[in-house]
């Protein structure tokens, strides 16, 4: 690694890690929106990944290469439990159920002693490396791009545009939506584990409703035309508060105004260029 890059990463490590992790979270939001569903549980899935990975590291001292994949298990199980009943229905049932999930989990983290209670878990070793975060982010973008350009991506778009017509085309609605939700839980779980192992401390309030809305805003700003779009949205919304540091408390106002403007004037996001999906 060249010296200047090393120096840069050292100085801005937190920000660089946060960019990559928020990119993964934006992708986890993207997968759900891509099948026309709204989830406000991405932060909750992230929290499950963060807590389970932190416990595996702190209590069992497992190697991080093992902790990372295992930290997806809890989010996936919760996604199955919530998605199976709600995704058979059309409408906002998933959104409502996932808001509930976030709040229930917050209460659990707060009240269970071995989860650290209100103090959270601290002393988590900093094991998330720059290359892990960006390697996973790059791999996730690539996989979602390849899937998006295939027949599976076509089926997802059909379900999003007109679920009834999609079903008449022979597409299994529940399976398509559940598959997307599980993929999103995996991505959020990875982001949670990476986040926990790059900040040394996690607490119950980091995975509630507010971060869920922030994750949604990544995808709203960037749009969902390609997997790259929400990631760029995440980058912008992560960098912006840093650039606006001088305005201190007004930063959140700026954020909010940008989201409102994006929804009003850019309903397809900042990057609406569609994927080419013309095969052969």
């Amino acid at each position, binding site marked *: 690694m060249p010296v200047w890059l090393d120096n840069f990463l050292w100085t801005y490590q937190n920000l660089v890690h946060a960019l990559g992790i928020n990119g993964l979270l934006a992708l986890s939001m993207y997968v759900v929106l891509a099948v026309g569903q709204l989830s406000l549980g991405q932060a909750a899935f992230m929290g499950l990944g963060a807590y389970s990975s932190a416990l595996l590291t702190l209590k069992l001292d497992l190697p991080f290469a093992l902790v990372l994949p295992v930290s997806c298990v809890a989010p996936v199980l919760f996604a199955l439990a919530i998605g199976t009943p709600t995704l058979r229905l059309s409408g906002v049932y998933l959104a409502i159920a996932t808001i509930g999930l976030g709040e229930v989990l917050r209460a659990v983290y707060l009240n269970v002693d071995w989860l650290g209670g209100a103090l959270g878990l601290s002393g988590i070793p900093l094991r998330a490396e720059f290359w892990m975060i960006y390697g996973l982010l790059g791999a996730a973008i690539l*996989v979602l791009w*390849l*899937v998006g350009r*295939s*027949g*599976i991506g*076509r*089926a997802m*778009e*059909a379900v999003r*545009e*007109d679920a*009834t*017509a*999609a*079903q*008449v*085309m*022979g*597409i*299994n*609605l529940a399976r398509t939506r559940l598959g997307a939700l599980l993929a999103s839980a995996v991505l959020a779980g990875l982001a949670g584990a990476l986040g926990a192992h790059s900040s040394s401390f996690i607490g119950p309030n980091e995975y509630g409703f507010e971060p869920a809305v922030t994750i949604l805003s990544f995808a709203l700003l960037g749009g969902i035309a390609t997997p790259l779009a929400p990631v760029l949205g995440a980058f912008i919304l992560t960098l912006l508060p840093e650039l606006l540091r001088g305005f201190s408390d007004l930063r959140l106002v700026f954020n909010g105004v940008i989201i409102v403007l994006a929804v009003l004037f850019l309903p397809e996001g900042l990057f609406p260029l*569609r994927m080419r*999906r*013309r*095969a*052969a």
Partner: protein
Amino acid sequence: MTALLQTRTLTRRYAGLLAVDSVDMAVQAGRVHALIGPNGAGKTTLFNLISGLEPPSEGAVLLRGRDITPLRADRRTALGLARTFQNIRIFGAMTVLENVLTGLQPRRTVGLIQTILRTPAFRREERALVARAREALEMVGLSARAEAQAATLPYGEQRLLEIARAMAPEPALLLLDEPAAGMNPAETAALAGLVRRIRDLGTTVLLVEHDMGFVMDIADDVTVLNFGRLIFQGPPAAARQAPEVMTAYLGQKMAARLAARARKVVP
């Protein structure tokens, strides 16, 4: 001979209203079968019951003698059922070709891993599906528009696209919900030719249509519904003469007057 499609005492009840009232209908294979009746007779509801978009309150739907009543719409599609909608439901943001490829969903066999790895099997299948989709577009005469965005097509072509998408998997039975609605006479004539070609290719057609000239022109069999009940089933010529059909369309008085006049003219 068992009919390709049969309904047995098929009933759909909405809070006190009988939209479809114990209908026993049979559609024979290799025919163009028209389903007609005044507005609100239950034709579209019957279509939804057959394609699985609504559950029946009572009764059963049989495809080739097999009870498909418990199956979801996507499973029925896999068994050879296809349909279009009265209010066109194409995927507007996709290209014309992509729309037809979506109709070939039941033919896809390669899984997620092969898709991500772009294995030879994936590429072969994708090529075969694209070839089949182009055939379907060719059949309805939309080949030249394959790369156009579907939403930009004029109305008549959107209808044709919906038919191509439904026909792509070579279904056993095609349900057309008012295919001629909003078409001009030239387009309607072309549509009649297309429906005949579809039948000759081996797909049975069941269609709802209000354009009686069109129905009389292409239907081999006719079923007439009124207030959810089946009031006539038989050849189209006989449907025109049947007193119960006249009454349904024109009301009791008018039908009686016409019948009386017919007796005077043709003793």
